[in-house]
């Protein structure tokens, strides 16, 4: 088993953090192997942002994601850029707060107003955690409680409660849309 995830959107949306938490949950709370990588560079300054995770039950020799099984996109630009690369038959989770134009692709598309939900919960800044909950809920790749532990271990002190709410909202949403 080897599953590849890509989280993409704009700098500042916190997708790198979400990817790290996902990989950490797998690494620290399951028997799976996990690697996480991301694009660096001045272009991540305000511009686009991309973070990858691979979770596998075997050794992960080559750690790069080429055709993700699961793509989470939180901007239109990210959708346009990365949707075509998804493994045929894979899954694309779309934050329809920002992604409006979703032409058909050979993938299973799931839509949710992730950012709107986060805003509703109090601060849009937790959209990444809503998204993480959604992704975990949809894919079942790692246990929800383990992921929540990882969330709480890696978010700034004082924001645990809000993030927990965000995560659970995402998980809940997954149940609704699947």
């Amino acid at each position: 088993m080897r599953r590849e995830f890509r989280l993409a959107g704009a700098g500042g949306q916190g997708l790198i953090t979400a990817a790290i938490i996902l990989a950490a949950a797998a690494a620290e709370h399951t028997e799976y192997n996990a690697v996480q990588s991301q694009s660096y560079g001045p272009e991540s300054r305000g511009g686009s942002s991309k973070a990858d995770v691979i979770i596998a039950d075997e050794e992960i020799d080559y750690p790069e994601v080429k055709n993700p099984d699961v793509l989470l996109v939180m901007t239109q630009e990210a959708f346009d850029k990365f949707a075509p690369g998804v493994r045929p038959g894979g899954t694309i989770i779309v934050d329809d707060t920002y992604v409006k134009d979703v032409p058909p692709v050979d993938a299973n598309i799931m839509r949710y107003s992730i950012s709107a939900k986060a805003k509703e919960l109090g601060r849009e800044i937790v959209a990444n955690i809503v998204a993480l909950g959604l992704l975990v809920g949809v894919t079942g790749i790692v246990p929800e409680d383990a992921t929540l532990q990882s969330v709480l271990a890696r978010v700034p002190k004082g924001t645990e409660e809000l993030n927990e709410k965000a995560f659970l909202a995402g998980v809940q949403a997954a149940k609704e849309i699947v």
Partner: protein
Amino acid sequence: MNGSKPKLLQGNEACVEGAIAAGLKFFAGYPITPSTEIAELCAARLPQVGGKFLQMEDEIASMAAICGASLAGRKSMTATSGPGFSLKQENIGFAVEAEIPCVVVDVQRVGPSTGMPTSAAQGDVMQARWGTHGDHEIVVLSPSSVLEAYTLTVTAFNIAEELRTPVILLMDEMVGHLREKVVLPEKSELVVRDRAKPDLPPGQYKPYADYGDPAKIAPLAAFGEGYKYHVTGLTHGEDGFPTNNPQAGATQIKRINDKITYRKKDLPQAEELFTDDAEVFVFSFGGTARSAKKAVRDARAAGLKAGLIRPVTIWPFLEEPLLKAKAKKPKAVIVPEMNLGQIVRPVKRVIGDTCPVVGLNKLGGQYIEPDEILEAVKEAILRGSAS
């Protein structure tokens, strides 16, 4: 940090944790992508464990400062990337000549010059060996995984202390920035070598003693311990004072080279996979070796007799596994590297005319993918069978 609990760690982070486990007490550095996390983590972690961090005015000063701290008896490290590695070269040469133990991390990025600061490359392989002026052997280690970034950092400190020499940890952006699941060894499992102390009283202590035996290296007294000895970058005698005697100079230079080549056997040996019956060898290091490993496994799955040699010690060049391979009269040795062809040079020198040595090179920050290597393996086997 240590213990059997699995963790998700970044390569750069693992390097810092390895250094701390090895006894790092002083880090001096200057930020540069993609090595910066090493400095940042040292700034946070060292004062927690009785160590110190100082951000210097540049890389030259950083290299100087760690030499100074090492002479004062503390294990020291610096970290940088291409442009900074170029700047450190003069003082790396000083550490070689004055035999000062320390660890220098170079997280490679695309060059030459500013190049592509956030993209991976393996273009500093030859610079790590030849970047400073004059003749000098130097120990260069290259990790392929986050765990190895940890363990090899510990090893780098051990070698530095045992051989009284700077050791280069040659990472690449791929490994430095990768986050990976690791189970760090228990403290008790770690071998940590501390600096040998002189057993002679100050009057008799020769900081650069020549025992006529490359296995024996003079211990290094710490400044402030009463030895009152002299250290210089000028060619010097056994007492550390400059000499203009050509014979003495020649002896000194040979001694600091021999102490390293003599210990080749004790340096981290290559990882070998399926080499016993291989017909085609893939010789690959660092991040690229991960692709190579995958390719070799895939080749085997397809019934092709490929084998992997992954050098962990890059310099001094360990010929042994290649000589063994050469003896098997292989069809080819494939050398994938993210540069225009650097490690392939000593490979060619060892393999000679026995079989084609095929460089597989990619530039511009592009990883070499397993399939590309697999393709090369297939081709080599086909070509080899045809001839």
